[in-house]
């Protein structure tokens, strides 16, 4: 009996986290008269809110922008980051120690300190309203490099030595020897980087003003600030939000173990 009560309470708790999403989804299909109601099934479902949202602002374009930016950043961090991590872990060259120290030190600097100077840099470079502004400052990621370097340090030297004896260059060693072994940390870094880039909104709000170049969360933000607060506007704004949320929820439903493990592992170290 106590067990049953326990599960009921647990279900209520879970509902607090899940119900708002269901309510949001339902509201997007409601006509203004029904908006605000608690029911999850509209009496007169309508696609008007989605039609309105889609024609008012370039959400399709924003989706493509976000995909392009997030994918480019993630690939860059994985490829160039692992190259740097490999060198820092396994090669000896002048300046290696300083580079390591700076990589660790960078993590202590709060993002707010460098935000404004980086913004002025982008303006001076003439990169306002460009994909370069959205991508280049994130091409390397100190956290990713540290995670990968940590992992690479544990790969036995013997593997490298025998690969070198076979005449392999360093890049070939990295991609044919290290990468297959590093599937877990690479996936972790990949998910963290992609989610971070996908959800980033303050930086695009600073460096992009052209609607055609805005990322999805950015366009959503700008869109949500306009218009009024009536029921139709509410439903339309929620419809726009669904465009941003659905892909993530879909990915999460199938991959939630990977999401949770990668995002929480950065905090679960002891």
């Amino acid at each position, binding site marked *: 009996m106590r067990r049953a009560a326990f599960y009921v309470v647990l279900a209520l708790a879970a509902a607090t986290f*899940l119900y708002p999403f269901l309510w949001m989804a339902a509201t997007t299909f409601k006509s203004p008269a029904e908006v605000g109601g608690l029911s999850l099934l509209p009496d007169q479902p309508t696609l008007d809110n989605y039609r309105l949202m889609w024609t008012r602002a370039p959400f399709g374009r924003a989706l493509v922008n976000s995909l392009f930016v997030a994918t480019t950043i993630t690939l860059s961090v994985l490829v160039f980051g692992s190259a740097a991590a490999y060198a820092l872990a396994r090669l000896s060259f002048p300046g290696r120690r300083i580079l390591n120290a700076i990589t660790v030190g960078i993590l202590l600097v709060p993002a707010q300190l460098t935000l404004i100077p980086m913004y002025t840099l982008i303006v001076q470079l003439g990169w306002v309203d460009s994909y370069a502004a959205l991508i280049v400052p994130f091409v390397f990621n100190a956290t990713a490099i540290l995670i990968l370097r940590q992992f690479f340090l544990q790969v036995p030297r013997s593997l490298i030595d025998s690969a070198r004896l076979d005449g392999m260059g360093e*890049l070939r060693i990295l991609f044919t020897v290290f990468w297959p072994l590093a599937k877990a940390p690479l996936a972790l870094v990949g998910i963290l980087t992609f989610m971070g880039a996908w959800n980033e909104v303050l930086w695009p709000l600073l460096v992009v003003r052209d609607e055609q170049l805005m990322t999805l969360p950015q366009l959503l933000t700008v869109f949500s600030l306009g218009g009024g607060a009536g029921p139709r506007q509410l439903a339309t704004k929620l419809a726009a939000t669904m465009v941003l949320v659905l892909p993530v929820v879909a990915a999460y439903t199938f991959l939630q173990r990977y999401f949770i493990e990668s995002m929480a592992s950065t905090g679960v170290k002891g």
Partner: protein
Amino acid sequence: MRAEARSGLFLTAPYAAFLVLFSLFPVGFSIVLVLLKWDLVTTPTFVGIENVQHLIGDARFWQAIVNTFVFLAIHLPLQMIIALTLAWALNRPLFFRSFWRAAFFLPVVISGAAVTILWSALYATDVGLINGLLARLDLGPVAWLTDPAIAMPAIAVMATWKNVGFYVVIYLAGLQNVPRSCHEAIDLEGATVWQRFRHVTLPLLKPQTLLVVMLSTIGGFQLFIEPYIMTGGGPLRRTLSIVLYMYKNAFSYQKMGYAATLGLALAVIIAAVLVVQRRVIGSAEEA
């Protein structure tokens, strides 16, 4: 030069260049900016400590600090209590355990902008879900986002909803590391579940608690998209956050020097608060 050294330099040169341009230069330049008055269009003027003086006398800045502490005063206890409770609930053999965990964690992966818009709808005075539920119970509508005294607490509750799942996972990992021998020893002495929790489990969770407090504090000081979308910093500037104020100075008022000053002040404040928290909660080894 040896081949290995050549390869090493080749593989890290792009990274080094990146660090100089996007990490080292910005840090150094932020200090320079504090001494300048610059709108990004005309040439900058050197103004010395004028920005800092203005900051000290800026009522909006201090209001933003107060707002952040109001936020933290509600968010931190809520976060700790709820995360710990849910983690404790999950720390046992359960049906569908990964489902419960996934449910709590879902808001963590959703974009802050999306969560904020969702909660703007929940908090809407006339058509919002929460007032709708209250109406069912014959309770009057609450002006969640337009009442100056309630707006920031409302944001604090939303932030807890969004992030608590992350800390549930952290606490859960900590709970699972508590050795069974500790539980068994206290059981023998006939202590209640609460006593066992308070005197054995809780102290052992100090590292996790410290992490929850510090990360949530940093998050609180970095509030931007929530007030930006929900309230624009109002009502009566009671939800103005430092980052929001910094953004306005850079983007709207074109005051780069002052914005950089705000950024520097924020970095210093965060560092100070974290140091104090570490002292108060104690380091992990004292458990």
